[in-house]
């Protein structure tokens, strides 16, 4: 008996990739999943940080999908390599700092490297023509195939009938007639197919899985680049953009203020890397100071820290300051008034 042909499926954890992989399994293809971790994935992190979200299920949707399909899942850390995609997207950004088309090309390219290293035959994705305005259009489908280098080894089972035949179809590894012709933004065909396969529960359909599609997050990333005068980031930077209230009182520094216990605890892990402040006379948040601060700036940072403590209405609040390269000291300050914080300080 001949070995089945092998495909790797890009598994996001959403419905489309679940269905695309199942369509291939139905045709006797051995499927394994691959999931990429960019650092901007919404899943997991935020729930893990915020205490108020601790009751929410912490299921990793990509692993859950793999379990439903009975396939192996390979999770690949692409944090460092992905920086170039975010910083220099050849095809530009979407509505925010989301480089969706470059992102898809990059992931398919990584999948191509993976199939070559692991003896697999082709790549499948859950893409549907017209599903997403930036990256899933009829004219972008060939761009992804060509620029990733995957070319005709890239198959989209859910909309394959609307596209030229790929190698698995031409070689007869799979039957083109049993593929689909989904198009457009409607989710109904996917839901009907999910029902046919007996999938009753699945993660919310396409979108919302990447922080770069979020306007507020993108604004904070753009601010970080502007303040540093360079479009670069480290993993800790993009993690911290997900946490706390970000306030920039001066161009040379910003404050990251924990909003609740879970965030304060998370920020504690960064105390050795940042000047930080907290109130000692009243309960209050842990505040990280990102940037260079003068004495005057530290005074202002202390007043803002006091403002977000339980002593916000007190005449005087004690704030302990731990500068990065100097001894800790305590300042007694009057909390800055709410109206003295301009809306423009909030990122």
């Amino acid at each position, binding site marked *: 008996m001949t070995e089945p042909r092998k495909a790797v499926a890009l598994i996001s954890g959403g419905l489309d990739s679940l269905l695309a992989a199942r369509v291939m399994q139905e045709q006797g293809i051995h499927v394994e999943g691959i999931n990429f*971790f960019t650092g901007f*994935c919404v*899943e*997991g*992190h935020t*729930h*893990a*940080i915020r205490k108020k979200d*601790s009751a929410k*299920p*912490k*299921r*990793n949707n990509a*692993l*859950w999908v*793999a*379990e439903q399909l009975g*396939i*192996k*899942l*390979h*999770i*690949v*850390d692409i944090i460092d390599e992905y920086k170039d995609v975010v910083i220099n997207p050849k095809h530009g950004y979407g509505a925010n700092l989301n480089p969706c088309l470059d992102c898809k090309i990059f992931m398919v390219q990584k999948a191509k490297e993976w199939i070559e290293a692991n003896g697999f035959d082709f790549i499948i994705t859950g893409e549907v023509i017209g599903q997403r305005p930036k990256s899933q259009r009829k004219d972008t489908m060939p761009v992804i195939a060509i620029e990733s280098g995957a070319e005709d080894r890239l198959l989209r089972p859910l909309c394959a009938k609307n596209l030229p035949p790929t190698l698995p179809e031409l070689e007869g590894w799979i039957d083109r007639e049993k593929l689909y012709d989904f198009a457009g933004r409607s989710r109904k065909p996917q839901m009907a197919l999910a029902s046919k396969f007996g999938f009753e529960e699945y993660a919310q359909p396409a979108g919302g899985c990447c922080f770069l599609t979020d306007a507020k997050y993108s604004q904070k990333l753009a601010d970080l680049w502007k303040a540093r005068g360079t479009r670069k980031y480290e993993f800790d930077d993009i*993690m911290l953009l997900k946490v706390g209230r970000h306030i920039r009182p001066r161009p040379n520094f910003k404050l990251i203020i924990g909003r609740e216990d879970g965030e304060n605890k998370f920020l504690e*892990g960064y105390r050795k890397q940042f000047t930080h402040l907290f109130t000692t006379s009243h309960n209050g948040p842990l505040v990280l100071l990102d940037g260079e601060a003068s004495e005057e700036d530290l005074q202002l940072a202390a007043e803002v820290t006091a403002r977000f403590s339980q002593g916000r209405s007190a005449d005087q609040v004690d704030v302990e300051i731990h500068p990065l390269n100097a001894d800790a000291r305590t300042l007694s300050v009057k909390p800055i008034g709410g109206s003295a914080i301009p809306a423009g300080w909030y990122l």
Partner: protein
Amino acid sequence: MSHYELDVRRMLCPLPVIRSQDRVEQLQPGDTLAVTCSDPGAKHDIPAWCRVNGHEMLSIEEQQDEIIIKIRVGDTD
């Protein structure tokens, strides 16, 4: 059969899973790995990763803010 340890404290999911996966790839079937985590999400994700990839979950131990997850490497080829 050997026993190994991995410290992924302060990492948030899915990093504890990724680091466990990368370590397991270097081990032999039957070896055991104890992963020390601080993200409670790992309690769900590492067992799910084991089920999906054919490894055996041996135990989950919680000590204050730390979670120690012990797994046995499966023969997955």
